[in-house]
């Protein structure tokens, strides 16, 4: 459904835009319907840039982003872009700044109606809103007619997902959507993503937290300095991390029932299979090598 082919993004940096910073380096990946793909990386790994390019907020410097076969950079004009956003929507990190505090939170539903469904009758629309709220497991009495400050972060985040569901959505870009939520409500939003997956939605889940990426996703992509370090089925990447950077990351994540020392000992006792990492022929490309079916490792950037 979504396919990224050798995507690069180079930012101009510095006072006069004279410097160059390669934020995304030669990334290729796919998202199928009903699949959750986690993009995991530390700050500066290019994970958010990738999400924003898929949402059409930035243009890739090189490479193609195909959505159902069409290159999204060729989508021109208001009507065509509107049509794209009917199928592809994003939800972002800070739910409080996603809403205009002056208006009631359910105004976001009205905006969708006036933009996309001006012909729908009041009663019909109300049913659709209630249906979407039911899907995200919100009680309409608790959220309709309320201002954003009266709702919790988890509720706001689910209102935004409900808003996306009112459209004919096929791909959701979820950029760090739970990192600002409290531990007790976080899991509800994660469970919701997995419900949506059952309905055939493709989800690009951008996160810095390995344990969250692991809980919900089918495929994990670990990014380092803009390039893919390791990519594969989530279970394989976490059980059998092959890239030195993935192993390092896993050893640093604080875990609830195991101490760092225990994890270190375990990783040391299970040295990785001897994998030859690919070598980049130049500064720009980042080739991958398939180690087992669907499990790739990328270049070593030290």
């Amino acid at each position, binding site marked *: 459904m979504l396919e990224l082919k050798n995507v690069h993004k180079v930012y101009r940096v510095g006072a006069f835009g004279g410097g160059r910073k390669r934020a995304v380096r030669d990334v290729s990946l796919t998202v199928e319907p009903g699949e959750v793909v986690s993009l995991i990386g530390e700050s500066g790994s290019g994970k958010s840039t990738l999400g924003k390019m898929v949402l059409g907020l930035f243009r890739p410097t090189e490479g193609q982003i195909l959505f159902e076969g069409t290159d999204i950079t060729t989508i021109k004009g208001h009507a065509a872009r509107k049509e794209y956003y009917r199928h592809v929507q994003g939800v972002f990190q800070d739910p409080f700044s996603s809403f205009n505090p002056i208006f009631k939170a359910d105004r976001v539903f009205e905006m969708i109606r006036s933009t996309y469904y001006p012909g729908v009758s009041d009663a019909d629309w109300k049913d659709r809103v209630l249906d979407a709220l039911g899907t995200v497991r919100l009680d309409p009495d608790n959220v309709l007619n309320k201002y954003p400050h009266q709702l919790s972060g988890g509720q706001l985040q689910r209102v935004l997902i409900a808003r996306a569901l009112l459209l004919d959505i096929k791909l959701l870009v979820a950029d760090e959507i739970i990192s600002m939520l409290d531990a007790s409500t976080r899991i509800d939003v994660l469970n919701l993503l*997995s419900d949506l997956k059952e309905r055939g939605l493709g989800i690009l889940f951008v996160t810095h937290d390995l344990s969250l990426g692991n809980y*919900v996703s089918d495929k994990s992509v670990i990014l380092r300095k803009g390039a893919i370090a390791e990519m594969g089925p989530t279970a394989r990447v976490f059980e059998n991390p092959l890239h030195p950077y993935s192993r390092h990351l896993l050893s640093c994540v604080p875990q609830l029932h195991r*101490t760092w020392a225990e994890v270190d000992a375990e990783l040391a006792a299970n040295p990785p299979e001897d994998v030859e990492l690919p070598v980049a022929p130049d500064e720009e490309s980042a080739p991958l090598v398939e180690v087992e079916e669907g499990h790739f490792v990328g270049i070593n950037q030290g």
Partner: protein
Amino acid sequence: MTLRVNDLKVYYQTLRGDVHALDGVTFDLADGEIMGLAGESGCGKTTLGKSLIRLDSRMKHVGGTIELDGKNVPIADEKAMVPLRYHEISLIPQYAMSALNPTRKIGRMIKDLMKARGVDPASIEDELHRRLELVGLEQDVLNRFPIELSGGMKQRVVMVISTLLNPSLLIADEVTSALDVSTQRAVAESMVEFRDRGFVKSMVFVTHDLSLVYQMADTIMVMYAGHVVEKASAKTIVNEPKHPYTQMLISALPEVGSTEEQGRLEGIPGKPPGLLDPPTGCRFKDRCPLAFSKCSERPPLVEIEPGHWAACWKTG
């Protein structure tokens, strides 16, 4: 006993009335103990950390006492607190990265700070260099401006500065939250190292991340809506929590290796009560599956096993 907090009440004054952010908090902290202070946003953990060192103008000390090394800590008395601050009680603030003066080089800033506290900067210079080396920083950072350092480096600089006078108590407020996982681990491990070498006697480590405090703390205290819910050794809190809130909180955390297919984790329905006009009795009762009639009275914090304290009628 380094620190003894007894029935501490601190309210925030607002135009609509007092917000009961800390409502009767009691705990002890032993010599050499690193205590993780965990809880959701708005539970009062940061307020507690701040109350131990400086009340800002909105905060009002309503009742309770704090004792450090046997001496009373007069938190409501701004003047009397001055000699204690930094010498005895020190703080690594939340967002320590923006705690450094951007217009001064690090070395110059440290000198100013020492003079302001009546300490001759030359007398601590060797120790400063030794400690910078210990956290993996070169002496060269003293000649740099904060903007030239990365987030993890700034965090470590603030850590060294905060502990330079060997305070008895260090309050670390969400010090690792803004860092990447690998830097997070390095910072957390050097904090333990500081305790082991005796640079600080004991530490309160405020965080929302239970899995992180489990890595480094000796004990964990969980707070909910201004009350202490449970305090025990880190292992006990994570493996055998007794209070229903702690149990639900721990079971809502996904772990590396747990997937949705293996078993769906459940969140805690509802949200914490507002503290402007808090409910009487147990503050968790509206979200608690075990709540019964007695929960309208406030459960006392009792020691159910040696070193394991919980405030719940069902665990007592």
